[in-house]
């Protein structure tokens, strides 16, 4: 338990000390919020769906959490390259607790980034419909964060350097984001897109966020919560297994 805590704490300290990373990882979601939010806003309005900033903000928050948690997981490659991973792998604690500590730490930083972006969205005109549902939104953010940090950690366990990283970004993270319904309503999307979205953990995360924040649902909170929690457990299990098999 102490091991999990100290690993969690380490991730948080590292996050607090890399300001440039913090700033850089805010730039992208804000670009999406402003360019797409204001750019497509009038068209969205004309199509009768209301305020696009309202609609896209939960998607942008979900995206922030997705990118940051994936990155936190992938950060394992840095630790491998700079040697710190060895220190944790020879320590007399189970590899599973090392993995859980890292993952929870990475997920916490991604959650913090998500909260910051939510605050910025509010500045851009986003309004939470029912503030009493904010804890539900935070729960969804935490689940998205844990799911993708675990996935990133699992993938990074298989990679020894950053050569495969671009592949992961292009084939996994980008599709997970664009096909999740973060940017458009899934309800009216063509069937193939809906099908893919229904296999994407982020779809359920974003839908849960959107339901909690603005009261617009596609799958509905019980489905969102159930499916996302299943993905979280699955990726923690697989990630933990792959991590425990790392050889240096």
């Amino acid at each position: 338990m102490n091991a999990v805590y100290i690993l969690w704490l380490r991730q948080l300290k590292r996050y607090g000390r890399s300001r440039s990373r913090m700033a850089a990882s805010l730039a992208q979601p804000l670009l999406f919020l402003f360019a797409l939010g204001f750019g497509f806003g009038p068209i969205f309005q004309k199509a009768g769906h209301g305020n696009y900033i309202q609609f896209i903000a939960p998607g942008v928050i979900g995206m922030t959490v997705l990118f940051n948690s994936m990155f936190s997981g992938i950060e394992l490659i840095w630790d491998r390259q700079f040697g710190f991973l060895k220190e944790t792998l020879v320590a007399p604690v189970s590899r599973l607790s090392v993995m859980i500590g890292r993952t929870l730490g990475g997920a916490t930083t991604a959650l913090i980034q998500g909260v910051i972006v939510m605050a910025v969205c509010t500045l851009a005109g986003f309004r939470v419909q029912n503030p009493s549902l904010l804890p539900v939104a935070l729960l969804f953010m935490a689940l998205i964060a844990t799911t993708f940090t675990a996935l990133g950690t699992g993938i990074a366990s298989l990679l020894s350097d950053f050569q495969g990283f671009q592949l992961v970004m292009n084939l996994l993270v980008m599709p997970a984001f664009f096909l999740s319904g973060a940017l458009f309503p899934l309800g009216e999307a063509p069937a193939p897109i809906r099908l893919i979205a229904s296999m994407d953990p982020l779809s359920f995360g974003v839908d849960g966020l959107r339901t909690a924040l603005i009261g617009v649902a596609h799958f509905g909170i019980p489905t969102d919560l159930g499916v996302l929690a299943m993905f979280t457990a699955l990726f923690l299990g697989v990630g933990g297994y792959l991590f425990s098999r790392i050889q240096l």
Partner: protein
Amino acid sequence: MIWASELIKNFGAISAVQGISFEVPKGEIFAFLGPNGAGKTTTIKMLTTLLKPSSGRVELDGLDPATQPQEARKRFGIVFQDSSTDDLLTAYENMEFHGVLYKVPKRIRAGRIEELFKLFGLWDRRDHQVQYFSGGMRRRLEIARGLLHTPKILFLDEPTLGLDPQTRNQLWSQVKRLNETEAVTVFLTTHYMEEAERVAHRIAIMDQGRIVAQGSAAELKQQTGTDSLETAFLALTGTSIREEEGGSIDRMRRMAKLFRR
């Protein structure tokens, strides 16, 4: 305490360790000498659960690191050849982290860290992030950290690489003290013959994945008919300089330098 039999490790077509056997009894200081690429670090990795052998058996205090890694890890401590500290943490935080992972009780942890930091001249810099440390200070931190808990077996993989004579001296007197007072078994690798001769009870000379000779320094000299360990070493391993391949880590380090803050 450490026992290896017919240990083999292949990486694809390359055979890094080609069937070595040795035994280190409890309380002994055992040195592995060998040119670059001889397989010393690979051997240490197999002993410390970081790598699984391709074949052969290892026992640490009667435990097989391949099948009982977690129990085996409770038995040893290690100072790695290359950096294994967290750059963004302070020196003190790195020590704390280690102390928690190795379950050094809180009430003795702080005192022990202070003692080691003063010994290795890091006390004044304890609250600085490791990224601002020089190479020598990083090494001292690694060594201080390796001595924070008292394991049954201490692995030292080229611990004195890049250290000044003062620190080297401190290190070896600490290691000897641990060995004498706590009967810690020490397994070390080094390139410095005089060091091996000074601290090690027994020495194994490794070359191209095999152990070519083992015994005390005196025995090795006698065996080769030479008068210094250095000439004995050269007699056993030849004078040609070894090729060593740069792995992905070296490539990555170079790349990382380009992106450094």
